[in-house]
């Protein structure tokens, strides 16, 4: 992996040499090696991807290069990081300050929390410029404006005086990139730069990074878990697992013929758009959920008497149904109202319209009268760590719904807990443990077991696999599938991930700004999308195949500017859906 034989594009000038880098983290049981003897070279203008799942040591590597390892828990046990004549390990804080931003810059996963909420964009950019003496104080503002133009931020003059919370996620990441490029560094480290962003925004940001890299000849070290992003961005890839190098290869070689078992398994687990097997048509024709003209609006109050001055039209006039044994996918970008629908079904937010569960109208029912109906519909959330109680054993949590509904007690509960644990592929020995003793995937299994405890007919899975590593994700998806086949469950599968939806859904509903823009059978919506928004979503999905170039994104003039907030008395124009083919309906024009 060292040497010049596998060097990618660029002029071959070496900018970074990492040799035998070993990082240890102090734990209660002693020092644990989180990165073991990693070596690589980075050449001007090339992109090297460090790919791996959580705990692989990829982020630690990035922090080590930046001299930002969390002190005093983590330390570089051995190895060297060199930039030209400068050895970075052991460089003091004072010396490192000249390297950071100046020679190596970094962008992070969460652009919101990575920016200072109390400082304007201008001050945050100027700060870097002045600290490193890039320009004089008087010229800094002008230079900052220039940088915002470079990162293709709309209305750059106005952005300068704005605060981070006034910008969208994509804009914030552009500001981070502008800041990172302020001193024209030789190396840019991007640590999961698009993981927190919507897929269309991700595509734009990746395009931007690539363009800027070409313009400046920056070497890019890309840290990611997403093999689609790797395929799209990287020249070379190092696959890490548990701190060890599993494979290091040029990107095309890796994807065409992975040599290590782990890389092969990792690539196989990546859900691919359009590669999902056919799904048999759901046999049961009975509709378990029928939603008609559902609207959820949140008031925004203000003024002298705190009256309602505006409303967020989170969900506006949505209708759909789910049949027995069927998986309906709700897809859309953040803020489109998809999660709100899930909450409305469980009565967690006030709603208008009609929701029938198992043919029974729930509208106007008291909480007590809702209870027996709610047994039929359960939820699995995105973050299994946050949706389990850290101070209650998982066994108790799994059977808590039974207790609450008064359906079982005593030894019956224990039997039921054991049965549920076996059902989701966990050993009953683990029932008395607490959530922190489980891995992310196991925790999500616990959440599934909890949802199953009441033998529901429908499970609302709200981004249930989004926080999991791909290999774990695949296992949990398999589990959900198996439960559906054996127990005849129906799913409302809420997700932003088109490739995952392709794997699990029978029918797909595409939402934008609280309304449905397209719906129909999976094959119709995903293979033959009619609405420009659906097309844009699909086109933005990174293809885990370096030989296939992702087509450029269709134009989205003004799309980001739309908002679901309206003054009282007005509302969005209702989107009208037109029949395209059997069950496939789409709005004819962009709303």
């Amino acid at each position, binding site marked *: 992996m060292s040497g010049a034989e596998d060097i990618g594009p660029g002029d071959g000038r070496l900018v970074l040499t990492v040799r035998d880098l070993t990082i240890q983290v102090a734990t209660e049981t002693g020092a644990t090696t989180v990165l073991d003897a990693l070596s690589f070279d980075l050449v001007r203008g090339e992109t090297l991807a460090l790919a791996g799942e959580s705990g692989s040591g990829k982020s630690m590597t990035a922090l080590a290069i*930046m001299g*930002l390892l969390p002190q005093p828990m983590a330390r570089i046990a051995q190895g060297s990081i060199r930039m030209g004549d400068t050895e970075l390990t052991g460089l003091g*804080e004072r010396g*490192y*300050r*000249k*390297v*950071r*931003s*100046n020679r190596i*810059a*970094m962008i*992070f996963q*969460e652009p919101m*929390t*990575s*920016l*200072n*909420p*109390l*400082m304007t964009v201008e001050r945050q950019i100027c*700060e*870097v410029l002045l*600290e*490193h003496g890039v320009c004089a104080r008087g010229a800094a503002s002008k230079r900052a404006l220039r940088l915002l133009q470079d990162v293709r931020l709309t209305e750059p003059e106005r952005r300068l005086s704005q*605060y981070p*919370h006034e910008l969208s996620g994509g804009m914030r990441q552009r500001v*981070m990139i502008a*800041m990172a490029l302020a001193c024209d560094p030789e190396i840019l480290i991007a640590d999961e730069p698009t993981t927190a962003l919507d897929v269309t925004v991700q595509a734009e940001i990746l395009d931007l990074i690539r363009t800027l890299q070409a313009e400046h000849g920056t070497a890019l070290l890309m840290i990611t878990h997403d093999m689609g992003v790797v395929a799209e961005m990287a020249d070379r890839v190092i696959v890490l697992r548990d701190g060890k190098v599993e494979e290091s290869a040029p990107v095309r070689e890796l994807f065409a013929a992975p040599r290590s078992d782990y890389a092969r398994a990792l690539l196989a687990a990546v859900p691919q758009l359009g590669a999902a097997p056919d799904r048999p048509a759901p046999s049961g024709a009975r509709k378990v959920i029928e939603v008609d003209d559902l609207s959820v609006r949140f008031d925004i*109050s*203000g*003024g*002298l*008497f*705190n009256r309602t001055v505006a409303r967020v039209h989170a969900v506006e006039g949505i209708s759909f149904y789910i049949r027995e044994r069927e998986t309906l996918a709700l897809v859309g970008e953040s803020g489109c109202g998809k999660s709100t629908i899930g909450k409305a079904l469980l009565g967690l937010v006030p709603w208008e319209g009609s929701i029938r569960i198992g043919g029974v109208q729930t509208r106007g029912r008291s909480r007590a009268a809702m209870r027996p109906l709610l047994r039929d519909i359960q939820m699995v959330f995105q973050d299994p760590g946050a949706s389990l109680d850290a101070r209650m054993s998982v066994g108790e949590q799994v059977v808590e719904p039974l207790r609450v509904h008064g359906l079982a007690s005593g030894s019956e509960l224990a039997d039921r807990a054991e049965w549920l644990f076996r059902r989701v592929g966990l050993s009953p020995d683990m029932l008395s443990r607490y959530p922190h003793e489980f891995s992310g995937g196991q925790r999500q299994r616990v959440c599934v077991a909890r949802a199953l405890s009441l033998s529901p007919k429908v499970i609302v899975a709200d981004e249930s696999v989004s926080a999991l590593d791909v290999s774990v994700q695949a296992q949990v998806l398999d589990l959900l599938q198996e439960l559906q086949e054996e127990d005849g469950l129906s799913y409302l599968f809420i997700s932003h991930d088109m490739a995952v939806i392709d794997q699990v859904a029978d029918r797909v509903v595409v939402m934008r700004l609280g309304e449905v823009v397209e719906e129909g059978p999976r094959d119709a919506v995903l293979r033959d999308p009619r609405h420009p928004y659906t097309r844009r979503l699909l086109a933005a999905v990174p293809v885990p195949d370096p030989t296939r170039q992702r087509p450029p994104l269709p134009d989205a003039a003004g799309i980001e500017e739309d908002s679901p907030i309206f003054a009282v008395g007005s509302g969005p124009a209702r989107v009208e859906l037109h029949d395209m083919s059997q069950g496939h309906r789409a709005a004819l024009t962009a709303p």
Partner: protein
Amino acid sequence: MWAYLLRRLFESALILLGITFVTFVLLYLVPADPARQIAGRSATAATVENIRDQLGLNDPLVVQYWRYLTGLAQGDMGRSYLQRAEVSSLIAARLPASLLLMVSAIVTELIIGLTIGVVAALRRNRPVDHSLMIFSFVAISAPQFVIGILLLYVFAVQLGWFPIGGYGTFAHLVLPSVTLGLLGAGWYSRMMRSSMIEVLNQDLVRTARAKGLSKLRIVTRHVMPNAILPIIAMIGIDIGLFMSGIVVVESVFGWPGIGQLAWQAIQRVDIPVIMGVTMVSATAIVLGNLLADLVAPLIDPRIKTK
């Protein structure tokens, strides 16, 4: 902005109205008889009854309360039972001294508290941090009259740096302010410490370091402004704490403020004065909270006054 301010002022007036009611009823229920206090121990029952009639104490509670409210609406807080003076002029004469003490105590507690908090957070889990936290613990738990007397003994009696009591010069102000501010300093140092530690672990600090900024700049420009946000709201609430402290500290140092006035009035069941002082301190607390809410959006652009 103006609509918000108007609404908040309106709400504040409602809160104050509620406070007048609660204090009025409480004082009505107190088993001590103000008329007996005025008349003295040797007075006959007829004399006492006569005084009760004169003061209107025999009227039903509702009538008395209404009389008080209508007076208050016209700026009349009633007359002291014992001091032959309007309550408003008694308070007006003593309020400046108390306000001076309060402002200087707030400044003292913020300077001491925030400095300790910042230093402890930057040196967390080291000896400096531990000793500072022991200090703040003592400051919180020690009763104010003990601290006051201790400071008086050491710095006034033994060292003679400051006068023993009284009012007038800056030197007179120092010991009462420190005594009053020390309790708050203890609380603020702990809050600032944990708030700083929280911000130090946030992503924005990692970004600031990745930008190659100096440690001083990171702490002063990035960490401290973010860490101080939750503390601003506390300062508003704090004025309430001061009111109880002021009664004690003014007595210890012979400071001629409303705390002393309140203490005398309570001992002698001088109800109009007690009501007056309560109203003034309640107003101070309500305005303090309002002020804190108005200042917060100036520092944090995410908060919008709506």
